[in-house]
């Protein structure tokens, strides 16, 4: 009986927890909207303005996703199929754009455009947003395609090479096998791009996500914001259900690819071409933005870097503490969810996290505010818990999938051997599964920490008074600050995140060495 109860609790506490904190707020948003607006609610959705805006948003995000997926997949292919010098270096450095908040890139490229074409250039265009999104999100496709390629056993390709040419083998065997990775990449980038608030807001481009923020924060038109949120939510849901089969198992990236033995090719004839391609991407995605930020920061008559540091430094500690505690909580939720999905075949918490993940940031923010803004829940509404809840909704799915991949790599027989030896479930988990999962756990923690540290879309909606977080401070100051000051703040932001990445990289090397067991 006790065993049954503990099993029931292990399965359902997490679902109840997620339900209360995040699912109910989203459902309440939906119900409120229907009850407030009655029958006119549905017709309001299909107003010409709404349809045009949603169409534009999808066109922008769809184009960015398509191009970012293509670029990232080519990089993933090159870096995982060919042997050449500095491959590890390229793999690492080309990931940087994914880890740096995208508004830093927006500032850098705004500066670049002004430097290249003059200060009066009209750069508030869709093209620039697409360009920045391609740079920032293409590493997602690089990771996912790379992970898929590494898992294709060499024999599969070699059996083809014995019958057909390399080019045909790629077209008829390798690409069809890894095709789901393109779909996952496209879908994830589409979700990230649709959900992104900061880049369109920075360039003054109207998208559905920025419009929700404007209605809510500038015009205090809660009903309009709610209606638009519901509209965007419904569209994202339709999109998700069409591909949920792929998305629920999205790899993001695999820490290990145990058992796989991928085929690598020499690229003697292509060496120059491959290096040129990768160096060009490195230049555009990493070196040039940093150089431009440096240039702009030091170009003014006064020392703006010092001023920027003075403005941002008080936020570093609070942002770090909040990101660290969120990363810890999210990793625990991810671990629990992935274990339930992979070992207990209980998929509900994973599905809940997936639904929350696809909800655009500002929509999630509105749902959380709407639900917790009640006297009885003021202890949550007035505290940093609001931000942590927002982060859980945004990033717990990523953690669950990284850890899910980690669990899949652990042979079931290891746990079965413990079962045969009479070891109980909890002890088996703590002594067998968990130690083997430490590298994945570390990777999940670091990624979530970096994402939380730079998150703006939900944070700007839900942060309570008295909380000073770096992304919010950056965004509010940059709205009215001279461009050189914004560049200086971006440079500091970039530097802080790179220092975190560097620190985690050093710790990570030790963790992986100690716990990889290979």
């Amino acid at each position, binding site marked *: 009986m006790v065993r049954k109860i503990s099993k029931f609790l292990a399965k359902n506490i997490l679902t109840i927890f997620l339900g209360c904190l995040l699912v109910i707020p989203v459902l309440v948003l939906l119900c409120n909207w229907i009850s407030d607006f009655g029958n006119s609610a549905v017709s309001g959705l299909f107003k010409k303005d709404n349809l045009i805006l949603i169409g534009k948003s999808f066109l922008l995000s769809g184009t960015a996703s398509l191009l970012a997926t293509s670029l990232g997949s080519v990089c993933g292919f090159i870096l995982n199929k060919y042997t050449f010098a500095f491959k590890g270096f390229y793999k690492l450095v080309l990931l940087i754009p994914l880890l740096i908040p995208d508004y830093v890139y927006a500032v850098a490229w705004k500066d670049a455009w002004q430097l290249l074409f003059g200060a009066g250039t009209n750069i508030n265009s869709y093209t620039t947003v697409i360009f920045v999104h391609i740079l920032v999100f293409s590493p997602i496709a690089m990771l996912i395609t790379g992970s898929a390629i590494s898992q294709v*056993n060499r*024999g*599969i390709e*070699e*059996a*083809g*090479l*014995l*019958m*057909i*040419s*390399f080019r*045909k083998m790629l077209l*008829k*065997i390798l690409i*069809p*096998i890894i095709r789901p990775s393109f779909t996952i990449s496209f879908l994830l980038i589409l979700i990230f791009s649709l959900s992104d608030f900061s880049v369109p807001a920075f360039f003054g481009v109207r998208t559905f996500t920025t419009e929700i923020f404007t209605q809510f924060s500038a015009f205090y038109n809660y009903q309009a914001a709610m209606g638009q949120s519901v509209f965007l939510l419904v569209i994202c849901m339709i999109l998700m259900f069409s591909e949920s089969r792929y998305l629920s198992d999205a790899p993001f990236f695999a820490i290990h690819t145990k058992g796989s033995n991928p085929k690598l090719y020499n690229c003697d004839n292509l060496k120059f071409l491959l290096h040129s391609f990768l160096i060009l991407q490195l230049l555009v995605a990493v070196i040039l933005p940093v150089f431009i930020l440096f240039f702009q920061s030091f170009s003014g008559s006064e020392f703006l870097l010092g001023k920027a540091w003075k403005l941002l430094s008080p936020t570093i500690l609070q942002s770090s503490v909040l990101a660290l505690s969120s990363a810890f909580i999210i990793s625990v939720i991810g671990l629990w969810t992935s274990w339930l999905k992979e070992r207990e075949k209980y998929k509900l918490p994973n599905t809940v996290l997936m639904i929350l993940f696809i909800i655009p940031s500002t929509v999630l923010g509105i749902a959380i505010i709407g639900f917790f803004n009640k006297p009885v829940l003021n202890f949550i509404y007035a505290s940093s818990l609001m931000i942590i809840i927002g982060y859980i909704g945004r990033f717990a799915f990523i953690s669950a999938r990284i850890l899910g991949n980690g669990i899949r790599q652990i042979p079931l027989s290891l746990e079965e051997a413990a079962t045969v030896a009479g070891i109980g479930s909890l002890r088996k988990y703590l002594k067998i599964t968990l130690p083997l999962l430490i590298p994945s756990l570390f990777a999940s923690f670091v990624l979530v920490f970096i994402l939380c540290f730079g998150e703006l879309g939900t944070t700007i909606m839900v942060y309570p008074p008295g909380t000073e977080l770096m992304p919010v401070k950056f965004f509010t100051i940059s709205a009215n600050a001279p461009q050189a000051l914004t560049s200086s703040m971006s440079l500091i932001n970039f530097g802080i995140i790179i220092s975190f990445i560097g620190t985690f990289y050093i710790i990570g090397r030790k963790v992986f060495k100690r716990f990889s067991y290979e």
Partner: protein
Amino acid sequence: MSSIQLNHITHSFNDKKVINDFTFTFDSGQTYCLLGPSGCGKTTILRLIAGLEVPQNGVIEIDGKIVTENDRLLIPPHKRGIGFVFQDLALWPHFSVFENIAFGLRESIREGSRKPDKGTKLYIEERVIQLLSFFGISDHWKKYPHQLSGGQKQMVAIARSLILNPKILLLDEPMANIDAQLKETIIDHLYTLHEQFGFTMIYVTHDHREAMHSNNTIIVLNKGEIITSGTREQIKNTTDVFTQSFIKL
């Protein structure tokens, strides 16, 4: 039928020498068995012949034509007339049984001429059905690899390797992980086909009982070098200590 000549082949992986000055001639239409402990270089020899690996040094000739010279691949794998059965079978997961077998033939016809017409389509079907019936798996032609048993997968992999009428058939531990009865059936099938088509057959095993099964020329390898070679009787009567101890194992 093809003869294969390996001259002074040396090959390393990460500075570890796996094949050391290997010289041997595989005569046309004969069957050979590469026998040796794990990691002795058996699979690497097959992969070098197929062109899936390129040696650091040495020359490989097929029918007197140089296909690999030192670290240069002169003839790509698909132009060597080789059938290969991989240890993990390497069936294409996104193709059905029929497609797995037909794919190579269809592509080679496409490469040779234009799009396959009705006549060639019928020819492909006929060839695939012939092989499927020979291996007794005709009923499974629509299935995908994950829907097959281990033995059925093995049969599909062998059938696939034979679809292009190869002059050389290379088998990398083809009997690993299957039961004794099925092993007998597959070996019988292979020798029947060998008699029928006369291809040069080289197969790799670490099981000396399997190697002693038929009238193969057995080549005993250790640390990338030939220790001894000869017929079943010659190997049984060898005075070489390593071979004796390996066979006793």
